[in-house]
Each structure stands twice: as structure tokens, then as C-alpha cells.
């Protein structure tokens, strides 16, 4: 029973961790209609920023998070219009060209990081790393709780922003239909810059947490991209609430299969689940996808 | 509404009885009854949201009716796949042109004939291009056409189907008078060959000139049908229809 509870908690926290880098990703698809291959690169960049801040200035990972948001938010803001232009160009398959563009960005960033920062694996120290508390028989790792809370906070914040503010309304109108947005007087290019910047900033922040929980090297980005994609599709593309549910589902499946079925089957189970869910419910588990 | 389907031979080309369809809480078709006779051009009018497009989708196989009977040329087609119905000889246009955008204009025509009417397709495509005055743009990408030309091409694809019944969804809406003229000539030509038409149209002038009979829909039901002049004289119907601008 204790192991069962611990497994459940592990699963929920793995899900929370996956959610941290998957939620903002929904924004790019929902609003910009772009599948961003570079999501993993933003995660890794955030991790590196935190690593260097800690190694040279001794700044705690959590304090680096706002820095990561500002820095990579600004970079994303500058890149947003380029991605928007490709996505809305008059080529035969603009959505594919946008995907290829983000794949190119991902490859460029990965190659750049390998060249500049080398190949070693680093770890980001944070105030909560390695600390845990006991609740009854269950060990609760605090950094993962922080990550899961971050995910919930971001999801809630984005939800509030999109559904309770005027600018959020503009974003949703744009997502729905560009003509609507133009009629409302929304500057779509600026909006896409803002959205991509917001997404890149949030994702880089989650990268700080990933560096604290796991470790950072330039080659692990693809793993995050893979999971962000899977969560997005399982959730229904563009669905924020779905992303939380989907991430938790993946986490719980991984934990239970690893604990009770054999860890080597855990990823087989995750991918098979995703595949089957898609066949049964093509727009994600909550059937809310675009 | 328990009328039996008419015997083959003198049966109408399209026979719709008690067809229902709802989307969520919206009843888009609430017991539709209508017929389109052989060689007839039937016009379908009604306010926006009255269920005209849903009816087209039900007949063409894009939607499955909740219940009811749809006979096309004696075949039960309710809930059948769109391509099956198309192969039986029913063709349709879409309200928003649904072209094969990355194919050439002649490619669009040939693709329309690819299933079931392939023999002599190239020659018929050339004839259709000539009929619709699309020869100069035959090798252009469909997406590069003007709006009016897109309507023409959409109509051209339907011609290539050599269909016995053609559903036209606002095929002349918003097009230049010259293009409308080309379309009307083509309709007349096909009619001579015995093709039946079922037409959604908002333009009363067009309805008057082209349609043999008018069917009026409102709130998912057929309200009335008859000759254009009769319908116009029935002020209640016109109130329903014209009283709600589109």
C-alpha cells in the first residue's frame, strides 16, 4: 500500500514535471498554429543559463527563473514574426514549412550549444534540490512539487490571461480566425511576437527546473520536444486544461508500469497509450483539440 | 408522412422523406420532405440557418441523417459515403469553392473524372475548358484564379462528373455578370442533355430565370413549394424569407 501511494505520487509528480514544459507549447499551436520543434532547445537553454549563473555567480536556480523569462522571452519576441511570416506564407504547405523552420532553429541551437558549451552534463543547484518531506509513508521530493506547482500556476495564469483579459480575448480571436482579429484592430504580427516570446520565456523557465530535477546537456532537447508533442496531441492541440490532464496521465502510466510492470516497458506503454487514445479520440482525451 | 416511395420509372430523381438531423441542441433538419423531378431544376430558398446547406450535406453524404429516407435515382443513400453517392451520379458544388488548390485548372477537371468517367476525360476536359472560357488559364494553379474563375472551375468539375443530378450551392453568388452568363449557358446546355438540378440560391432574379419550381425551407422544414410566381404571391412565405435579410 505504501508503495502504491508512493507510485501514485511519483506518477503525478512526473506528470507535473512533464506539464511544466508542455503547457506553454500549447499556446504556440493554439494561437500561431505552429508545431514548434525547438521547444526542447528552449528548455535546454534555460537550464544552461541557470547552470552558468549558479557556477559563476552562485545564483540559486529559482532566482534565475525570472531572468530566463526576460532573456528568452525577448529572443522569442524577436523571432515570433519570422515564424509567423513563414506560417502564413503562400507556399503550398505553410504549416510544414513552419515546422521545417523550427526544426532548423532547433538544429542550429543544438549545434551552437555543442560548439560553445561542449558536451558535458551539468546540474543546476536550487534551494530545494535533493530535499524532501515525509507525508505519512510517502516521500515527497520538494523540487518536483515546485515544478508541478509551477505547471499549475502557469496553466492557471495563462487561463486567466486568455479568458479574463482584453488582450487574451484578442489572442483567442486571432487563434479562431485571423480576419476577426484584423477587424478588432489587432496587430497580428506584434501579437505573434508577444505570444512566441511568452512561450519561449515560460519554456526556458521550465528548463531551469528541468536542470534542477534532471541534468542539462545539449543533446537532451529532443526528449523534451518528443514529450511536449505527445502531451499536446494527447491533450488535444491548443487545449491548456487538456495538457495538464494528459501530462498527469502520462506520468502516472510511466510510474505504475515502471513500478509494477518493469521499467523497461514504461515508455512502450506511454507511446502505445498515446497511439491508442488518438485512434479512439482523435482530438485528444478531452476532445477539445483544434 | 407514411407515403411509400414511388415506383421506379416515373419516380423523382431525388426523394427525401422525414429526414432529421441535429447538431447538439440545434435541429438542422426537422423532418424534411421534398422531391426533385427528372430533368427539373428545383430551387431551394430560405433564410440563413434554415437548414439548406445541412440538407445538401445530408443528400451528398457529408452528413449522416438521424433518421428518415433519402432516395437518389431509386437508391437508398441516407448515411452512405459521399464517394458512393457520387458514383451513383450525384455531383455537387460547395458554397465556398473547394478546389484542388495546388493542381492546375485542367488537373482539377481531370481529377473530377478520375473515378468512373475516365474514358475520354481529356477530350471532355478540353470541351469544358472551352465551354467555361477557362482555356487561357488551363495550366495555372487553381489557387491563382480569381474568385469568379474559381466558381467556374468548381462548376466545370461538376460537368466532368457527367452526373444525373447536380447540387449547386450559391454558384452565382457574388460573381461578375459575365461569369454568371457563362454559368447559366452551361446549365442550359446540361439541361438539354437531361441533367436535373437542385439549386440553393439567394438571388431572386436568378431563381426566377432558372428554376422550374421553388422549395422554401425554414427552421429545418420545407414550408412550401411551387412555381416561382405562386410563391411570390404567397406573401406569408415571402415575409418569412425576405423579412429576414441575410
Amino acid at each position: 500500500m505504501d508503495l502504491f501511494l508512493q507510485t501514485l505520487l511519483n506518477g503525478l509528480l512526473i506528470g507535473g514535471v512533464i506539464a511544466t514544459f508542455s503547457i506553454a507549447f500549447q499556446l504556440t499551436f493554439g494561437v500561431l498554429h505552429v508545431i514548434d520543434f525547438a521547444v526542447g532547445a528552449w528548455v535546454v537553454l534555460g537550464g544552461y543559463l541557470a547552470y552558468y549563473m549558479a557556477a559563476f555567480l552562485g545564483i540559486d536556480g529559482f532566482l534565475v527563473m525570472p531572468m530566463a523569462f526576460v532573456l528568452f522571452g525577448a529572443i522569442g519576441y524577436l523571432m515570433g514574426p519570422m515564424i509567423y511570416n513563414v506560417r502564413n506564407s503562400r507556399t503550398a504547405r505553410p504549416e510544414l514549412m513552419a515546422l521545417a523552420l523550427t526544426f532548423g532553429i532547433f538544429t542550429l541551437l543544438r549545434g551552437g550549444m555543442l560548439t560553445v558549451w561542449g558536451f558535458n552534463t551539468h546540474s543546476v543547484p536550487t534551494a530545494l534540490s535533493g530535499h524532501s518531506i515525509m507525508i505519512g509513508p510517502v516521500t515527497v521530493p520538494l523540487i518536483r512539487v515546485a515544478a508541478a506547482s509551477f505547471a499549475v500556476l502557469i496553466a492557471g495564469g495563462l487561463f486567466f490571461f486568455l479568458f479574463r483579459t482584453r488582450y487574451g480575448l484578442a489572442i483567442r480571436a486571432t487563434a479562431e480566425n485571423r480576419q476577426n482579429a484584423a477587424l478588432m484592430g489587432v496587430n497580428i504580427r506584434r501579437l505573434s511576437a508577444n505570444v512566441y516570446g511568452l512561450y519561449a520565456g515560460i519554456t526556458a523557465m521550465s528548463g531551469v527546473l528541468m536542470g534542477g530535477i534532471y541534468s542539462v546537456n545539449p543533446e537532451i532537447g529532443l526528449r523534451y520536444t518528443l514529450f511536449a508533442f505527445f502531451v499536446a496531441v494527447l491533450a488535444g492541440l491548443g487545449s491548456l486544461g487538456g495538457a495538464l490532464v494528459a501530462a498527469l496521465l502520462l506520468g502516472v502510466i510511466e510510474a505504475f508500469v515502471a513500478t509494477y510492470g518493469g521499467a523497461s516497458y514504461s515508455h512502450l506503454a506511454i507511446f502505445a497509450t498515446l497511439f491508442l487514445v488518438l485512434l479512439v479520440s482523435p482530438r485528444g482525451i478531452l476532445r477539445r483539440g483544434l | 408522412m407514411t407515403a411509400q416511395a414511388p415506383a421506379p420509372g416515373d419516380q423523382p430523381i431525388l426523394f427525401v422523406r422525414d429526414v432529421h438531423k441535429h447538431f447538439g441542441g440545434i435541429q438542422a433538419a426537422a423532418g424534411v420532405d421534398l422531391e426533385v423531378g427528372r430533368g427539373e431544376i428545383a430551387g431551394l430558398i430560405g433564410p440563413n440557418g434554415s437548414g439548406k446547406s445541412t440538407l445538401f450535406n445530408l443528400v451528398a453524404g457529408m452528413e449522416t441523417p438521424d433518421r428518415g429516407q433519402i432516395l437518389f435515382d431509386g437508391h437508398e443513400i441516407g448515411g452512405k459515403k459521399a464517394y458512393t453517392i457520387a458514383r451513383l451520379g450525384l455531383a455537387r458544388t460547395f458554397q465556398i469553392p473547394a478546389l484542388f488548390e495546388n493542381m492546375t485548372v485542367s488537373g482539377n477537371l481531370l481529377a473530377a473524372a478520375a473515378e468512373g468517367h475516365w474514358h475520354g476525360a481529356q477530350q471532355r476536359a478540353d470541351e469544358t475548358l472551352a465551354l467555361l472560357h477557362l482555356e487561357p488559364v488551363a495550366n495555372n494553379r487553381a489557387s491563382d484564379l480569381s474568385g469568379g474563375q474559381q466558381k467556374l472551375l468548381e462548376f466545370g468539375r461538376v460537368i466532368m462528373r457527367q452526373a444525373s443530378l447536380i447540387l449547386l450551392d450559391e454558384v452565382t453568388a457574388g460573381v461578375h455578370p459575365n461569369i454568371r452568363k457563362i454559368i447559366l449557358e452551361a446549365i442550359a446546355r446540361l439541361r438539354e442533355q437531361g441533367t436535373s438540378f437542385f439549386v440553393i440560391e439567394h438571388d431572386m432574379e436568378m431563381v426566377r430565370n432558372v428554376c422550374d419550381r421553388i422549395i422554401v425551407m425554414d427552421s429545418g422544414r420545407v414550408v412550401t413549394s411551387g412555381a416561382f410566381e405562386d410563391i411570390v404571391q404567397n406573401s406569408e412565405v415571402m415575409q418569412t424569407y425576405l423579412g429576414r435579410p441575410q
Partner: protein
Amino acid sequence: MAQTMKNRWAGLLLLVGILVVLALLPVLVNNYWLRVATGALMWAGLACSWNMLGGYAGYINFGHSAFFGIGAYATAILMGADFAVPFLATIPIGMIVTALFAVVIGAPTLRLRGAYFAIATWAFAEVLMQFATVVDFTGGTGGIGLPPFLNERFFYFAMFAAAVLTYFLTWLLFERSRFGLKVKALRDHEPAAEAMGINTSLVKLQTFVLSAVVASVFGSIFAYWVTFINPKSVFGGDITDQMVVMVLLGGLGSLWGPAIGGVALFFVNRLIWMYYGDTAFYIAILGAAIILVVLFLPNGIAGLFARRSGKSGSVLDTVLGRLLGSRQGGRS
């Protein structure tokens, strides 16, 4: 008219010229470049197989490596001591196994659209990779070796034959027959294609199976050529990624686009790899190259040579448009 005829003859002459050069390549270059050419032919063929579904039918398959891998494993397992099947016999068996998988997977998956289809196929490829990793008959994660056959010319001509057949088949089916018309029609507007009597589910499935089977042939030859495979090396996502990028660079949905993209990317990769090989810098160069092509050659390299008609802009237009950001299409 005379102009088109002339162009057609020039094109044919060019094609024959290329084929002659390729056929004579083994006596023209050394073994290393022959090996590179073998790889380039393989990638040109794989890119073409991906383009069948991705370019002609508009379904983006992110798990195409699954079929490459099935072909490779079929050959590796069948040529092993347990079965000792001769190499050429493993190819059709691999094709049959691949076709079965493709039908079973394709029928339900092809109901999905856009990104959902793309990621469902990715998940499928990951399932196969994980499966090959955890079971024993594939050699597990440690991989599986094949009896080495050290004749580089055999593999060159095997890839050459497979690639030529692939392109001929593509030309015949997608450019010269009504099957191609149906496929392109459903790509551009599926409901309209249905309304034209086209059984889109069937046509999609046929295309999916065809593209899968072609990939499996290359997988079979690849396994025997490289003599060692493991789950990552044949099921890995980077294999599909490369095919996708090659097709996009070359020109999506065109016959020669994948060949141009495949050969160009593979050669550029190998050249950068040769000269910058002791650093990871070539990865960054590759990424920059992809970005530049997307920004400035959105119709792929093949688009540079395509006949421009109607209102489609010139390359210069596109370049200027991208730089000045003035092109805002209305398509969503």
C-alpha cells in the same frame, strides 16, 4: 508547343546523361565516394517514399522510419543463423511484413488529420523502437549483426536499382496516371475529392502502404550494407526527420524535389562533416542552412526550376518579401 517539345527532349537527355554517369560511377570514383553515393541514392529513394504520402497526399508521416526499420530488421533476422535466408529473398518478405503493418496501422491512423496524424505516426515508430529494444529476437538494445558482404559495387548498384525503380514508379503512379490525380485531389480538399467519387480512405491507405513498402526495401539493403543495426539506428526519429527535411528542401510534392533535396542534404552533410568533423559546428551549419532554405526557397530547390505561371511570384519576389516581411497571405 515547339518550345515544350524542345524542353521535353532536353529534360530526357539530361535524365539519360545522369543515369549513364551514375551507372559508370563505380569506375569514376574511389570506394569512399562510391559509399557516399550509395548513401545519397538511399536517401533520395527514402525521401521519395516519404514524399508519396507527405507531398502527394498531404499526410505528414513522422514515423516513416518504422517501415525502414521493419525492412532492416526483417533482413537482419532472416539472414541470421536461425533462418539463413538469402539476402534477395529477405527483401520481398520484408515488403510483405511491412505492408501488413502498414495496413493495420494505416487504416485507423489515416482518419486523423494534420498534426494528430503526424504525431500518431511518430508514436507508432517509437512503439516499434521500444519494442525492438525490449524483446530478444531483435537482439534487443545491443543490436544485431549481419554476415558481412564486402562488395561495395553490389550495394551501390542495389541502391541504384532501388532508387531508379522508386522514381520510375512514382513518376508512373503519381505523375502519369489517374491514381496520382486522385491522391493530389484528396490532398488539396478531401471532402471535395469524396464528392468527386474518390474513395479517399482507400486511396490514402494505398499510398501509405506503397510508401511504407518502398522504405522497407531501402531498409533491407541498408541493413546488409552496414552489417549492423540497432533499434536507434533504424527506427530513430532522426531518420524520419532527415527525410522530411530533404523533401522540404527539395520541393514538396514534386517528382524530383526529393532527389535534389536528398542528394544535396546528404552531400552537404558529408562535406561539412569531412571538413568540420572534429567539432559539432557542422550541426549548427546544417541548422542555419535549413533556416535559410525555408526563408528564401519556400518551394524547395526544385521550385527554382519550376515553370512559373500566373500570379505566383518570382524567387526574387519571395526573397524580397521575406526580407521586408511584406508577404501576408490569407491562408490559415
